[in-house]
């Protein structure tokens, strides 16, 4: 008698667990699909709106520039606008980068440039963007204390994802090429790779 009652109770328990699992599955499926719908919509939305933002991260001298100065932590800011409805944006970017060395050498670079960004056509919540740009950089060196503006070219890559209606969060890798080859007697150019965490603010949502 007692064992029959136990058997019934066990069966009821199994049924309750199954029911819970079924509801969990339904809830999970709904959540996933809802999230997907939501992300799809946001992705489409924010990319077509103007954006402004800031970034922060390691700025690394590379190639010949790496012989003289060391990596530092700096950042910058940008604004971007869409060109019609194409997957292209046009941006304006600037930053402050101050490099020190173990000795007396110091390098300060303030790049000011425009760039064009192309979103790669992947149907995902993450946005992948390639970018290329040109402008100038104010270069200052120590201990000589010399400074001047040099032309600059850049290539870069970004990925970002939405974190709410107003904000996107992303990662960026930029290569900055500071050109001095046109100056008489110059044999070196500047090479910097910027990597950083980026915070985008979607304007006009």
């Amino acid at each position: 008698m007692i064992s029959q009652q136990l058997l019934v109770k066990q069966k009821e328990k199994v049924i309750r667990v199954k029911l819970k699992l079924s509801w969990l599955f339904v809830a999970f499926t709904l959540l996933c699909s809802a999230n997907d719908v939501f992300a799809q919509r946001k992705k489409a939305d924010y990319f077509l709106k103007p954006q402004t933002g800031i970034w922060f991260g390691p700025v690394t001298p590379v190639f010949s520039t790496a012989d003289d100065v060391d990596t530092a932590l700096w950042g910058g800011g940008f604004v971007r606008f869409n060109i019609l409805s194409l997957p292209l944006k046009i941006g304006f970017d600037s930053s402050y980068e101050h490099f020190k060395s173990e000795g007396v050498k110091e390098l300060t670079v303030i790049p000011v440039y425009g760039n064009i960004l192309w979103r790669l056509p992947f149907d995902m919540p993450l946005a992948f963007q390639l970018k290329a740009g040109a402008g100038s950089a104010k270069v200052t060196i120590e201990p000589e204390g010399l400074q001047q503006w040099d032309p600059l070219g850049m290539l870069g890559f970004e990925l970002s994802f939405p974190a709410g209606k107003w904000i996107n969060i992303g990662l960026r890798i930029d290569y900055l090429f500071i050109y001095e080859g046109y100056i008489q007697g110059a044999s070196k150019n500047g090479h910097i790779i910027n990597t950083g965490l980026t915070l985008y603010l979607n304007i006009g949502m």
Partner: protein
Amino acid sequence: MKKFFYYIVLFVAIVTVYGCTGKNALFDELSGSRLTVIIKGTFESTSDSTSVNGWNTTVPGTKIDDSVNDFVTDSSESFPTTFMVDIAEIRLAKPDGSSDDKVGNYRQVFTSQIDDSDPFFNGTGIKLKCDDIKPGKQYGMVKLYIRKLIFDNATQWYIDGSNNIVQDNAPEVIFHEEEVNGFDFNQLMVNTYYDYLKENYQDINRVFPLEIPIDGGLIVDEDEEVTLEIRLVIKNFIKLYEYDFTNDDGYGAAYHYWAPSDWLRDVQPDDVFIGGNLLGVARAYRKNAVATVSGNTGSNSGYVIAIPRYDMYGNEQNIGDYFLDDDDPLNWLRPTVYPPATPSVKVGTVEGYLDYYLRYEQYKIEYNDFVDAVNDGSYETNWNSYDGYKWSLRLPPLVAHTGTGNNYTLTNVPYGEYKFYFVADTNVPYGTLPQEINDVGYWTEYSLNPVYVSSDTNISF
């Protein structure tokens, strides 16, 4: 939006074109240096310093310091053949040592053969890696952060139970991450004897950095190439010392090691520290504004010394600003009041203990005298006076030694007014420098001093 697009493109174009106005190759400037630093181990500044004879062969007596007392066994000592240098970094500072810049923040290691064929000893010099310096800044001191200075051919001795002096294994030291035979005398250069008498001696370090004055100072303008020559007096200045200790077996033992002469600050038996005897001078010159001065010194061989007529502050100077007076009993000789050395048991025998107790009685008497000297103030006064006088030594920036036919050549003499002096070799025995100001006939002044050097010049005594 289209209009806006054009504005941005226009802005970028303007910014890019504006960037093309630079005239300086900044990245080349950043990696290059206007400053060349060379280091030499000679008292001479000339680019050929090979005329001093017999400096690297053993001559018993003159090359063994009088502080070597407990383990005298000249038979087994041989002159070093290798000099090893390990420099942590180089800084340049203002004349008072403040505001230093890390111009050579690189560990630099080199080994020199103790021979006239080696650039460190023959006047060529060894180039040290360095960055640039600040244009327009008045530098007046090189700070050389020395990690190790090693001569090979050090020996180890101990007194065994039968009171015999026995030679032990040659001392070994780590140099550039490898074990080498030799002794790092730099560790004993950390304090002068007087520093060691002070309570705060552990806060004093004379080799990290070694402060070397730049005679005449150093200022660069933009686009100027400057050479900084650092000279450490090593050549013709090496002596054998003794470092006493008790070895692991409890026997009295000693290292015999080679280090720069104690000509300036006497090292006495049982002293540990030999600091203040690593003498250096630095000078700067521009390669495109130097001349060669040459001539003959008559019947005597010796050193030709040139000093600038004016110092970096515009004050006229003469040989008295460089030379000291070794007849000055108050300042030159080491004061005789200092704490006596604590005796120790040298040998664990009855004789050894008796010797120890005898020394201990003597120590008590000496210590009482020392207390009296401290109380009447003579201890402090004498030592301060002695120490200050020794630090006032300045080595001349331009020195040449005569060669064949008593001819000499002073190279890389910056344009300017100089006073020339001559000191004969007979006045400068091994392990000393030409420095005696008051002895009549010790030095000879060039009759037409001062001389303005603006091109290659002949000056004969």
